[in-house]
């Protein structure tokens, strides 16, 4: 996932190569919308890709390489050695990625929550009912297909803000505090800004990527590079 956009790096077209060799080693290459995309975000994405792929039990090794970025060499060297962001950048970095990761997870939680809340109110569920739903009850709530998708997305991020017992309240704020039926409308409008932000950002990132790499011009296959041994499926 892109941590800030809460969208898949594959859907965003960031990933340009994902190959597996006969020894079950995985090779991933990715690129970003600008040469400047913040190094910490870039590192975070690479690190998450590495962890997600390593978690698959058949995988024997992972290589993640960032291309066409001002810090590509540094980040790639850090990734190859398995260093942390702080170790990779030394004194230039002044914080650790866990805080940043947490900030983004909370924002992702908020976006997913507001999408679900809007959907539930749209289906006619009243605020006082919504705020008193437990996780078990949310799981049984009759919803349409879109609602089902939104519930699943929401539940993926719900652990970010509090424990997930069946009797826990389904909807709490970023601090894990239950929502009130009274302040419901104001709470939702507050969350909407987080969502507007991210949507805007997503549009910008997609657009910049497509302008930078000219994704709009119809793809004309290039003649294969001489000496290209693996024939990896590159998009350009």
């Amino acid at each position: 996932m892109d941590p800030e956009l809460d969208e898949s790096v594959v859907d965003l077209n960031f990933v340009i190569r994902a190959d597996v060799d006969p020894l079950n080693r995985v090779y991933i290459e990715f690129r970003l919308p600008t040469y400047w995309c913040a190094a910490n975000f870039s590192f975070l994405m690479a690190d998450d890709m590495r962890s997600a792929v390593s978690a698959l039990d058949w995988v024997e090794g992972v290589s993640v390489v960032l291309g066409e970025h001002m810090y590509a060499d540094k980040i790639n060297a850090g990734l190859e050695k398995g260093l942390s962001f702080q170790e990779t950048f030394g004194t230039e970095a002044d914080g650790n990625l866990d805080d940043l990761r947490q900030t983004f997870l909370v924002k992702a939680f908020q976006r997913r929550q507001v999408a679900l809340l809007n959907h539930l109110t749209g289906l006619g569920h009243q605020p006082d009912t919504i705020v008193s739903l437990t996780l078990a009850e949310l799981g049984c709530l009759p919803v349409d297909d879109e609602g089902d998708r939104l519930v699943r997305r929401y539940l993926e991020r719900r652990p970010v803000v509090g424990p997930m017992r069946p009797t826990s309240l389904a909807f709490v704020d970023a601090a894990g505090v239950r929502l009130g039926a009274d302040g419901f409308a104001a709470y939702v409008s507050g969350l909407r800004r987080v969502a507007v932000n991210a949507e805007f950002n997503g549009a910008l990132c997609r657009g910049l990527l497509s302008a930078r790499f000219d994704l709009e011009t119809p793809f004309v296959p290039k003649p294969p590079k001489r000496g290209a041994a693996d024939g990896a499926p590159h998009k350009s």
Partner: protein
Amino acid sequence: MYKTAKGEEIFVIDGHTHFWDGSPANQKNVHGKQFIDCFYAYHSNLSPPSEKWEKEKFEKYDAKTMYDDLFVTGYDDMAILQPTYLTDFYKNGFNTTERNSAMKKSHPDRFILNGAFDPRDGTKGLEHLHALSEKYKIKGVKLYTAEWRGESKGYKLTDKASYQYLEAAQKLGIKNIHVHKGPTIIPLNRDAFDVADIDDVATSFQDLNFIVEHCGLPRLDDFCWIATQETNVYAGLAVALPFIHTRPGYFAHVISELLFWVGPDKILYGSDYGIWTPKWLIDKFMAFEIPDDVTKETGSVLTMETKTKILGLNAARLYGIDVEAQKKKIRAGGGYAHLPEAVHAPR
């Protein structure tokens, strides 16, 4: 000058323009190339196809092109020149106060010349700020907290040195502090998604105005909180406005949130010329209405009065421009000669 169908004149101050040189000849290193390439990606991505420039023109445009795009083809009456030094990337800097001053010199009634400072420049930088004030009588500065200086990849307004500079600015009557808080670029984790330092300095420096360029996008949520609490924090629409073409639905959300939280008196239009040009931006903005469903949520409406404030009156207030007097000056200089009505206008 924008004229409505009813003949109302709307005085336009463009809060964000540049007269840059990003040409290969001026590039110091690969960063200089990547910087202008990135700007060009913004330009190509968000402009309507008919408004897209050739790369070469985009890298370096001449003074006449800029004048025509802003004031003849475009509806700007005045424009604020915001410098961006980037001396680590460009031999002569990208868009310095000195370079911009040539525009101001040729068209004094049209331009407001802003300076810049960087608190990491120490005593020498403070002296430079005094010199800018003396030479150009600047009323505003543009700060780029993400700019590199050697090993440093950015600074915060809350740094001790920043305070010294802001104190100096206050003494010199440089009241308008434009701060780039925009899409995530350059810095490492420092300052990467944070507008919190604005909150601190806006409280400490009540006599200064803080114009947050690009209204903190993509940190609009954080920015709105701050701007609501502080009376001297403004939103600059540069970069947000062009979305009116590619993503009008999202622009509607952004402008309605800004109107709701920040209010119509504290939002400033800016084209970010040469990334985008005033003509199409303002044509679209004047034709724009916030859709009903968004208005229902936020209660925000983009009235003609509000548009007039955003396009010029708010900036006029910040920079002490007497709109009627300024119109007379521009008209006397032949600045409205291209408008058909100017033939009959009193001289």
